[in-house]
């Protein structure tokens, strides 16, 4: 018995995912200022919230979510990524938020979980 993946199941809906990331960040951090003691808790909650919302989408994907929270100090930060995957099925998106004292940078990668024939 063959299973076929429809186009909707395998498509990567950018708006939905972007909304999920924004909501997780706002829920976890809101407008707070940078506090070293709490930042560990923030990153964990942002990432976990993101991941649980993504898994609720029910798509056949594996996800990698990375979050960087940095104090705004005038220091510079450069980021780059390189991937070895299948461009037609896999993708990534970045998202960053800068508030008063906090810079929050988010990267999400999605990789196709399995092939259906």
């Amino acid at each position: 018995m063959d299973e076929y993946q429809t186009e909707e199941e395998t498509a990567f809906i950018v708006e939905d995912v972007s909304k999920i990331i924004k909501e997780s960040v706002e829920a976890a951090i809101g407008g707070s200022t940078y506090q070293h003691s709490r930042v560990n808790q923030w990153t964990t909650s942002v990432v976990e919230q993101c991941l649980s919302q993504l898994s609720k989408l029910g798509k056949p994907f594996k996800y990698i979510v990375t979050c960087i929270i940095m104090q705004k100090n005038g220091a510079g930060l450069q980021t780059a990524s390189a991937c070895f995957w299948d461009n037609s099925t896999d993708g990534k998106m970045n998202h960053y938020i800068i508030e008063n004292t906090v810079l929050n940078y988010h990267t999400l990668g999605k990789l196709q979980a399995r092939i259906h024939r």
Partner: protein
Amino acid sequence: MSDQLKDKHQRRERRTVKVPSDGSHGVRVKEATIRKNTEREIIVSSMDELGHHDENTRMVVTMENTYQTAPHKRFPVPAVTHILKDVLSSYLQQEKYEVEWSQKMTKTICEVIRARVKDLMIPRYKIVVLVHIGQQAGQSMQMSSRCLWDATTDSFACYSFTNSSLFGVATVYGVYFE
């Protein structure tokens, strides 16, 4: 009859990927022939797409069953960590943070790491490499990452390097593709 026998003994997949003739620029097609045994020549063609997504539809890739349920060779975390340590130390030792230099350096380091991990030739693993270089200015930061994957087959390796004026963090994720 003989064809069926040959199919049974086949261990490698046979893939054919076709791209329309007016495909997006920046598409490189690499073909490699691997001689599995004297009877049969198996052609594996892979495609490396540079940059952006292909808007046009592609032919669906059909693959034969290989009946392989688990990876033969897992993601070698210590070897990859060693690569990361090697690359970061050699590129960032004795360097000072400068904006343009570090922009180029992050991209370069990323590509070097990806090439070296690919050279390890771990079959059926997809690789994601992330590199961050930042200035050391007394600020505080926290990086975290979570993944939704199969913990028995997928893994990651990371390494961080610091000197007096900058810090560099490299992370490599290896994800098994059935």
